[in-house]
């Protein structure tokens, strides 16, 4: 993959970390403001793609990105199964109260969604980028 231009380098150096921060913000505000796991996952993947375009695939080519999506599925499904411990139905979410801080258990489910979206998109990016003509 080519993209070896100074302009792209300079922009990516700032834009990639910034995108990651925005993605984190978007993930955590998702429950109350626009955002959420899906969008955050896409944004993470966009940051990753930007880094590849600017600096090349490098070691990312040998990372098994699909493992992240499988792990995400595990996170989501086990969040769904947690209510079974209390005799509730699958995916019957609750809200955890940690002092003044409220954490809906749906957040973990959302985390799984984000990981899956990120992992799947990265898999496709990395695999397509390695295709020869």
């Amino acid at each position, binding site marked *: 993959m080519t993209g070896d231009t100074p302009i792209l380098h300079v922009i990516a150096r700032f834009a990639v970390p910034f995108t990651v921060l925005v993605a984190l913000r978007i993930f955590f505000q998702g429950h109350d403001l626009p955002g959420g*796991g899906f969008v955050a996952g896409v944004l993470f993947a966009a940051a990753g793609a930007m880094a590849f375009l600017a600096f090349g695939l490098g070691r990312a080519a040998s990372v098994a990105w699909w493992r992240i999506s499988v792990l995400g599925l595990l996170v989501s499904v086990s969040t769904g199964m947690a209510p079974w411990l209390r005799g509730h139905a699958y995916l019957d979410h609750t809200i955890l109260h940690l002092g003044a801080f409220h954490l809906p258990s749906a957040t973990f489910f959302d985390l799984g969604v984000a990981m899956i979206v990120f992992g799947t998109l990265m898999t496709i990016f990395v695999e397509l980028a390695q295709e020869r003509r």
Partner: protein
Amino acid sequence: MLDPGSLIGFSILSPFAAAAGALLLGRMLALGSGWLVVAGAVSSTACLAALALSPSVGGVSVPWIPSLGVAIALRADGFGLFFALLVSAMGVLVALYSLAYLGAADADRARRYYASLGVFMGSMIGIALADDLILLFVFWEMTSISSFLLIGHRFEEDDTKRGAAMALQVTALGGLVMSVGFLLIGQVTGTFSLSALASDPAHARALLASPLGACALLCVLCGACTKSAQVPFHFWLPQAMVAPTPISAYLHAATMVKAGVFLVGRMVPLFADSPLWFPLLAGIGGVSMVLGAYQATRETDLKAILARTTGSTLGMLFMLYGIGNASQDALGMLNHALYKGALFLVAGIVDHHAHTRDIRKLGGLRHALPVPFAVAALAAASMAGLPPLLGFVAKESLFEGLMHAPLLAAHPVARVLVLLATLVTGALLVATAWRFVAEVFLGSPRDAAKHSGSGAGALSIAPLVLAAGALGLGLATPSGLTARIGELGSSRPEPLHLALVPHLGWPLAASVAALLLGVLAYRGREALAAWGRRLAVLPPAARVWQSALDAVMALGDAYSRRWENGSLRWYLAATSLCVPLLVGYALARLGLSYRAIGVTLQDLSPYGALFCGLIVLAAIAATRATTRLAAAIASSAVGFLVAMVYVVYRSPDILLTQILIETVSTIFMLLLLVHLPRFPRRDLGRGAQLLNAGIAASVGLTVSVLLLLAMTPGLRETDNLATRPGGLLSLALAEGGGTNAVNVIIVDIRALDTNGEIMVLVAVGLCIFGLLRTRRRAA
């Protein structure tokens, strides 16, 4: 002492446990995995024997799918218990025989063999004891699959592959049809419980009254006929003789092929009054009986000979059910299992010794294999119906029953036909039994027998036990033990009158006639074969089946070539065409059309109009582009302009998603550009262009109408689903603890939908990874 419920559970679970043990520990244990299965079979035989000795009928039921009335219900009534005991006791013998037969085969192969054997045994006992039709079906299919693995044990050989595949195709197809029959029974009667169906005559009446009842009977019979290798599905059994011999003895003589007979026995209380019952069962059974016995005289492979006679005897059992003589079924099954099991196992010994099963190359083995010779003589005598063996007692009882069959008394023509068919079959079985003994063991040794391998050794034990059983039960007739077993194990327990010393009368005359005719048939076997060749007008059933399969394959091939040809343009056109069709159908169902649109141009904001105009321009640019890169940029522009429309209408959620998705798809397009063919393509004819234009126009129109309808206020009552009190907005806050209703819907209120979607997403990622990786690795 355990309660009956646990005994039933243990009897089914112990072979499965042995199978699991063999699978997991097989590499370490080597031959030990065989002993595991022996132990499993012994423990399940012990449980079943304890059940048989207990006075009450044991049962256990655990809810499985309560909303559909399906339960894991097991019940040990006489018939089921008899069949289960037959399976487990034969299982012990066959597993013991296998230990010597497989010998020092490699551990991995033995592991697979014994694991499949254990699964098969457990599923067969499950069929015998299941009290729920759905559970019975599950066990039924498990026997089909495990028998496929067992038949295909020597999977490197082409013959084996073909035979195992054919057995699976036929029995699995029949099993599926049978499941439809079970569902129909459940539909008509409202229950899947076999004991409930059998005990309440109202269910049988309901099935008789409903047209679905006849369909159910046909479907269930189809399952039974495929499993028991009855006409017209009789061809798979000889092909399945590629299995290791103990497997043939177990599956194709003693147990699995009897599952069809067993199923018919279970259906007697339900369908015996149906007008189809007598002609179908007596017809199928009678034809299979005569055809199998005749074909056996023409085969040259020892095991194929036995397989054909098995089909014949199973046909006889089908016929017994058809003519209303169900009370003899257990006696018939037991008799057949004993002598046919012994003969199969002897065939295995002969094969081991002489390295051939071709009867034309065998002869004079009585000196080399004295014990198998004695066993074969006894078993063949039982098959021919000679006193004092069980075969004689059973045959006398069979003829006696035919004379007094209630259904036959009303049909004189059918009665003559059935009697003649039974006589001819008896004679042909005598001829085959004599041929088996005479051409393998008597006479002078031929080439193959001279340079022979090992003696029989431990292999003789299991067939010896079986032959001794046939002799012992025959001799025990006067004590009443044999009749007692036959009565207790029958699907319709009625007193059986068995006698070792026959009275002078028609049954004895028929036996003697069969014997004499059999000798004649053996003498004139060449003339008989020539005669048969002249009579054969139909093509061989196996070939018909193969051409039917080939036709299905050809159909699939033609379909793929026409509709799944890899042309992306064609896929896109077909997929797009679904939009106007499906949306149009939905709108028509709701009674909506463009006339209901309540949006006017005044509702359009100036910014909205501006962006819409730009979208149109970008779309036109995309279609006019001369390079693919330009087209990609133009269509990306469309996407980002749509995002701007969301800005105008203040929907930040969709805006965010749209922009990100558009970004990601642009990256995808860039990655893919280099792999795509030359652009623009100008190879479409005038007609195809018009067709594509038509599809595009109809998609555009449909989506426009749909969107305008969606914006029309007050059209549907779901309009204020979100904002009304108790609507989604308040629900999101109360239930999900969030104010962003969109996200709360995704992760909480409709989380199960999301759960499905993320699974699809993971699967897609893995598929793309797998496809691209393997292709790159291959290149």
